[in-house]
């Protein structure tokens, strides 16, 4: 998923054909399962496709998906932006950074999904606890990634810039910040599927809206078709979000040499 963008660049006809074959096999296997075990457990690809269309036409799918996406987006911004800025503050205050470090590591280690009941207690059952859950996960991923970027700053760039007149603020702005952006982006990229997953888990636990709620209510009613429709929608959302982040990243980081070696490796050419 992480390399999806580079993959598409190096794709050739052979790879596309092979991928279609894999997709056909998966769908055929799914159909076989539903024939063998009954559609009550597995629904079937065709049923899911019809239902998908129905849910889109009724506007329900869009309504539920936008609720989940909203929670994931707000949580990512609320948790991610401060987490991307904090390493720059700590760079100027290394003592504070050293004091706080074990707490960051400890906080990262806490299984955040286990906090969901607590967030529901604190923030109620609407969107707020989902946003909090997403933020708690995204913030740590972005923070550690950006910190790695800040620490990886090229000391020679800093020396040379000082010689030609840069002060501390210039260095932060022109050298540390641009150098750390790729790392912050990597953090957001890794965090994106987790953000959507966390929003869904929040909805599973307590909600009357969202794709997580759709999964839950489908399962309760033995409506496996609805469950699969929700899962397919979630998969599509994650793939699209990843593509969009990839495009934004490519535009922001257009100064970087193209990473063809990566594309070649992924496509196996």
């Amino acid at each position, binding site marked *: 998923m992480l390399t999806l963008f580079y993959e598409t660049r190096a794709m050739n006809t052979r790879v596309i054909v092979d991928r279609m074959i894999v997709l056909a096999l998966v769908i055929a296997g799914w159909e076989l399962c539903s024939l063998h075990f009954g559609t009550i457990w597995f629904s079937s690809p065709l049923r899911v496709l019809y239902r998908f269309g129905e849910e889109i036409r009724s506007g329900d799918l869009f309504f539920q998906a936008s609720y989940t996406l909203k929670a994931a987006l707000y949580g990512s911004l609320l948790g991610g932006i401060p987490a991307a800025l904090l390493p720059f503050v700590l760079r100027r205050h290394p003592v504070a950074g050293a004091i706080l470090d074990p707490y960051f590591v400890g906080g990262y280690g806490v299984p955040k999904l286990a906090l969901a009941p607590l967030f529901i207690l604190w923030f109620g059952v609407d969107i707020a606890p989902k946003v909090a859950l997403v933020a708690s996960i995204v913030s740590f991923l972005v923070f550690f990634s950006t910190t790695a970027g800040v620490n990886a700053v090229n000391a020679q760039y800093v020396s040379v810039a000082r*010689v030609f007149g840069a002060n501390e603020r*210039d260095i932060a702005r022109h050298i540390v910040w641009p150098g750390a952006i790729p790392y912050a982006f990597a953090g957001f990229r890794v965090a994106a599927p987790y953000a959507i997953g966390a929003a869904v888990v929040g909805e599973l636990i307590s909600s009357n809206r969202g794709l997580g709620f759709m999964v839950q209510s489908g399962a309760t009613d033995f409506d496996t078709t609805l469950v699969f429709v929700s899962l397919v929608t979630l998969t599509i959302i994650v793939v699209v979000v990843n593509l969009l982040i990839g495009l934004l990243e490519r535009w922001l980081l257009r*100064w970087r040499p193209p990473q063809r070696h990566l594309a070649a490796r992924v496509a196996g050419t």
Partner: protein
Amino acid sequence: MSSPRTMLEVKGLAKRFSPRSGQAAAPWILADLSFHVAEQEFLTLVGPSGAGKSTLLNIIAQVDGASEGEIFFRGKLIETADGAALKPGWNCQIGYVTQDDNLLPWRTLYENVTLPLKLQGRFDATGKARVDDLLRVTNLSGFQRYYPHELSGGMRKRAALIRTLAYDPPIILMDEPFGAVDAQTRTQLQQDLLRLWHRGGKTIVFVTHDIGEAIALGDRVLVLSKSPAKIIAAHNIGIKRPRDLGNVYRLEGFGELFEAVRKDIQ
């Protein structure tokens, strides 16, 4: 050789880094090193690899402190003691072109070259004209909007050079700036450098391990010993200017000087 107008004077400079654990004292990198540079002189320092040439330039550029000794810039003492508050570049008076080009990869060639002027608040009409002129002289016009990874090694070296020339520091330190390029590009870069220097006003301290380069470029060559580095010989280079570097071995007196410096180093 002494000149009435001394730009930079280095007196009794010595340097050693803090000892590693288990080491009583670190070895000296520089020991009792003294020399001076006249205004508008092209001084080259030649010495074996690992002689402490980069350390010396780092200290003069105020990127690193000295353990002992003093440096005077136009007669004024530069604070160099280890632990003192260093002022890298001495208020933009001392330019420094390093071994690596150190162009910022996220800035285009033009943004890189103009960065010092912008940071110094001098990116005005005069500054712009100066940059445009330097770009033209070094054949970089037309590449302003390219990112460093899109430029050849030689172009990056020229960009690094004019980044420093653009803000016009009176003295420029150069640390094997043409190290990692092929021989032809290198000759071209040397010729470019001499052409820029001939326009006047610049004092250059050029460090290299290449004897030929030191002689071809310099007014005067100082020979550094193996570590701990000190000056063991000085040669005035009487070769007429402008010099044609395409044919450096045919230059009047080049052979004798080369032999003399080679003997000094051995």
